[in-house]
């Protein structure tokens, strides 16, 4: 797609908004529709769009394959670790009461940490799957 000017310019214009929307969906998940799952998928869709228009090598420069594959287990680890602090302070596993004194505040923090684990896993898994398929195509 080297000479497809409209696609290239259009992608460059729309890409920041896709990524910004993903961040918004992630952090606004407490108050509106959204959350880690949707945000992760939208982020990954942005990277995939970039890869399809500008080529795989250009996409690897903004989302290096090694980093993406490292993030796949990191997300699960963040999620699993979010439950641990409570266990040392008279709470059960994945009880977020430990993250603050006010009930609502503590649980909002807990949900945000957990959703961060989710967004990392979903984003990196989707991009890693795309890289795997696209690499296979190039032989």
């Amino acid at each position, binding site marked *: 797609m080297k000479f497809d000017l409209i696609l290239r310019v259009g992608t460059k214009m729309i890409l920041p908004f896709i990524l910004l929307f993903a961040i918004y969906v992630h952090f606004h998940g407490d108050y*509106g*529709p959204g959350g880690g799952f949707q945000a992760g998928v939208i982020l990954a*869709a942005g990277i995939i769009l970039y890869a399809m228009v500008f080529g795989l090598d250009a996409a690897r420069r903004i989302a290096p394959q090694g980093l993406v594959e490292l993030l796949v287990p990191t997300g699960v680890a963040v999620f699993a670790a979010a439950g641990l602090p409570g266990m040392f302070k008279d709470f059960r596993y994945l009880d977020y009461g430990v993250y603050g004194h006010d009930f609502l505040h503590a649980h909002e923090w807990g*949900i945000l940490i957990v959703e961060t684990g989710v967004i990392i896993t979903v984003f990196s898994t989707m991009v890693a799957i*795309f890289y*795997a*398929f696209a690499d296979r195509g190039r*032989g």
Partner: protein
Amino acid sequence: MTISLIQMALLTMLAAVTVAIIRQRNLFGVVILAGIYSFLMASVMILIDAVDVAMTEASVGAGISTVVLLATIALTGSKEYPSVRRSLVPLFVAAVTGGALIWGTFPLPRFGVQESAIHMHVAPEYLQHSKDHKMPPNVVTAVLGDFRGYDTLGETTVIFTAGIGVMLLLRGRRRRLKENGKSAGKGTA
């Protein structure tokens, strides 16, 4: 009449797209139809108040799965050959299953009734927590991240496992290049 006309229209279109998917022999067409199907499904989900789910379905079903399916077709070819098997037995199995399932729907509660059993269990409690300002206003996020955090941890692990599986299957060296002479001599269809 509790189902709106627009919902019936969308559901009918879903059924029509499904028939088109069955009849379409070109896999590229099948994938695009599956994308249309996902958007229609997301619209239906908005009508039945599942806004979070609709957002996910629109981005996952029409976005990521279309890309992955197209990537596979690019690797395998996009023509579906007519099956040599007769299609009467599958049709019969499908018809019997469908008939039995429809018979099973008759005792189900009416659509949209507040008194049905599903609204009596834990859901009122979840809603009450958010109404009392103990939880974030979006109840879906609260249930997903907090009340049912164990579920979500499991689901995240499944996604992780599937991703690792894809990488294991596709990151290795291609064997076909090595054995090209052998398989070409055997003659592929």
